[in-house]
C-alpha cells in the first residue's frame, strides 16, 4: 500500500506463473496460477494484466497481442507462493485463449495494479452488487470483509448464475430470464435493500449499463458507492493513456486512478467503447 490508497505495489516486470487449475463454473472459467514472485496480499478490486505464455503475440499471435486486464477473484497463500484465481468470461480471442489454459501451462502476469475498494465509511454496512462477470472482484472483497456483507448478484441465465455458489452465505440472485431467482435487474433488489436501510456503502462491478443504474440509484438515495469499472487497456500501469473514462474532473486513467472509482466522481458510468 502507498499513501493510504488500497494499492499493493507490483514488481516492475511481467512474470511467469504456472496454471494450477482451470475449472468451469457454469458459463465462466476460474483459472488459478501459482505466483511465487508476486506480493501475497493484493487488495480486493485490484487487477492483473494477463497473457498466456504461449501463442500470445510477439511471434505467435495476431490477436490477442496486448495483455488483458482481470480483477483477481481470489488470492490464497500457498507453500510456493500466492495462488491467484481469475474468473473469466469468454468474449473474444484473449479471454478464449486464457480459458483454454491447462494445469502446467505458463501464464504471464503483471500486477497487482490499480486501486482497490475502500472499507465503508462510518460503520455503514457493505452491500456488494455484481452483474455477470462483475462478480469476480466481489468474491475476494467478501472474503476479506468477514461477515456483515450483503451480496446481490444479477446474471443473464442459470449457467452464468452458477458462479453465485462461489460466494459465502446466501447471495440474492436475480436473472434476466428468471431461470434462477426472480426475473429482474440487480438494481431492483439493490433499491429494496437501500430503501429499507440506507446506512450502507455499495460496492458494484458489472457492465456499464448496470453500473450506471447503480450510480443513479445511489445518487438518488444518497448512499456512497464504489464502482469497479472497465475500459479497454493496453498497458495497465499508466503508460499508454488509453484507458481513460470521463469524470466530473475530466478524464482519468482507469488503470492507475481506478479501476475502483467513487460513484460521486462520475456524471455517468457509461463510457464509449467499454463493455461488449
Amino acid at each position, binding site marked *: 500500500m502507498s499513501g493510504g490508497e488500497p494499492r499493493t505495489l507490483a514488481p*516492475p516486470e*511481467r512474470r511467469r506463473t504456472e496454471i494450477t487449475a482451470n475449472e468451469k463454473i457454469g458459463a465462466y472459467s476460474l483459472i488459478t496460477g501459482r505466483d511465487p514472485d508476486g506480493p501475497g496480499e493484493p487488495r480486493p478490486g485490484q487487477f492483473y494484466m494477463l497473457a498466456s505464455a504461449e501463442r500470445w*503475440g*510477439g511471434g505467435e499471435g495476431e490477436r490477442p497481442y496486448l495483455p488483458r486486464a482481470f480483477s483477481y477473484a481470489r488470492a490464497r497463500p500457498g507453500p510456493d507462493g500466492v495462488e491467484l484465481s481469475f474468473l473469466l468470461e469468454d468474449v473474444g480471442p484473449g479471454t478464449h485463449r486464457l480459458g483454454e489454459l491447462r494445469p502446467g501451462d505458463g501464464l504471464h502476469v503483471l500486477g497487482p495494479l490499480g486501486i482497490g475498494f475502500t472499507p465503508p465509511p462510518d460503520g455503514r454496512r457493505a452491500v456488494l452488487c455484481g452483474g455477470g462477470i462483475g462478480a469476480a472482484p466481489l468474491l475476494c472483497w467478501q472474503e476479506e470483509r468477514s461477515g456483515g456483507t450483503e451480496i446481490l448478484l444479477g446474471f443473464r441465465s442459470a449457467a452464468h448464475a452458477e458462479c453465485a455458489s462461489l460466494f459465502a452465505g446466501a447471495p440474492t440472485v436475480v436473472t434476466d430470464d428468471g431461470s434462477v431467482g426472480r426475473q429482474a435487474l440487480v438494481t431492483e433488489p439493490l433499491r429494496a435493500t437501500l430503501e429499507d436501510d440506507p446506512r450502507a456503502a455499495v460496492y458494484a462491478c458489472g457492465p456499464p449499463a448496470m453500473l450506471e443504474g447503480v450510480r443513479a440509484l445511489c445518487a438518488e438515495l444518497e448512499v456512497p458507492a464504489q464502482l469497479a469499472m472497465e475500459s479497454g487497456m*493496453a*498497458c495497465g500501469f*499508466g503508460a499508454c493513456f488509453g484507458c481513460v473514462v470521463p469524470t466530473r474532473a475530466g478524464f482519468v486513467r482507469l488503470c492507475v486512478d481506478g479501476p475502483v472509482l467513487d460513484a460521486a466522481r462520475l456524471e455517468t458510468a457509461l*463510457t*464509449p467503447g467499454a463493455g461488449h
Partner: protein
Amino acid sequence: MDLCGVQLAGPILNGSGTFDAIAARRAFGDALLERFPFDCFVSKTITVEPRQGNPPPRLWEAPGGMINSIGLPNKGLEGFLAADLPQLAELPVPLCVSVMGFDRDELALLVSALAERDEVALVELNVSCPNVETGLIMGADPGETAAAVERVRGLLDRPLIVKLTPNATDPAAVAGAAEAAGADAVSLVNTLKGMALDPRSGRPWLGGRTGGLSGPAVRAIALEQVATVSSRVSIPVIGMGGIASGEHAADFLAMGATAVAVGTESFRDPAAGRRIGAELAALGGGAAAATADLPA
C-alpha cells in the same frame, strides 16, 4: 555510449508517450528506479496549454500492433514544470523532454522554458502535427521542419532531436532539412496514420476517428525509413517502430541508428526495455555499438 554529448549506459530509450515514469512509480514503487528499463527517459509530448486528449475509445488492437488516438493529453508547460519535472528528475537516467507546438512561437516558448532547467538533458521536437498557420504537417515538409528548428535552435544549449513522422513522401529530405537547420539528432518513426471500424456499428471505432499504428506491424516500414535517413544524414539517428527484441534493435543499429527506442512493447511488459538491452548486449554488436562512442 554517447548520444549527442550525453552519456548513456546503453542505447535503449523509450518512445515518447509510451511510458509514464510517474504513473509507473505509483504502480511499482521505487523498485522501478532500481530496475529502470531505459538508458534515457523521454517524456510524453507536452504542449503550451494543458490538453485533455481525445475522447475514448482510444485504443484498437490491430494485426501485429495497435492503433491509438490518445490526442496528447498533458498538463501543459506550467503544469509539467511544476508537477512533473521534479519527479522526472529523480529518475536514474538522463531526461529528454518532448514538445509540440501548434506554431513556431509555441515551440519557442516551450524550448526556452526547458532551456532554463538543468534537469533537462535533451529536447525532442515532435513535429507530427499540423502547423496551424500554414496547415501543413510540419514534419512532412522539409521547409516547415527547417523553419521550426531554426526558430528554436538558438534558444537551447543542449541537444535538440527532431522526431520525424513516417507519413511523409520523403522522410530523408525532412531529416536532411532538420540537420541543415541545426538539429543534433533525428528520431523515427512516429506512428502511421490508421483507422478501424466498430464491428457493431460500422463507424470509426476511435474517439479521435483516426489514430496511429505502432508495434511489430510497422517494423519493416520503420527499418526502411531508418536505413534511408541514416544514409542521408550524418547526425545520430534514433530508430524505433515495432522493436520487441534485441535482434530487432540490432537490425536498426545495423541500418545506421545510433540508439533505439522501445514503445508499444513496453505495454506488454514494463521491463521490455531492459530485456531488449540485455538481448542486444548478448548479441555482441549492441554492446559494441553501445560503447564504441565512449571517450577513451
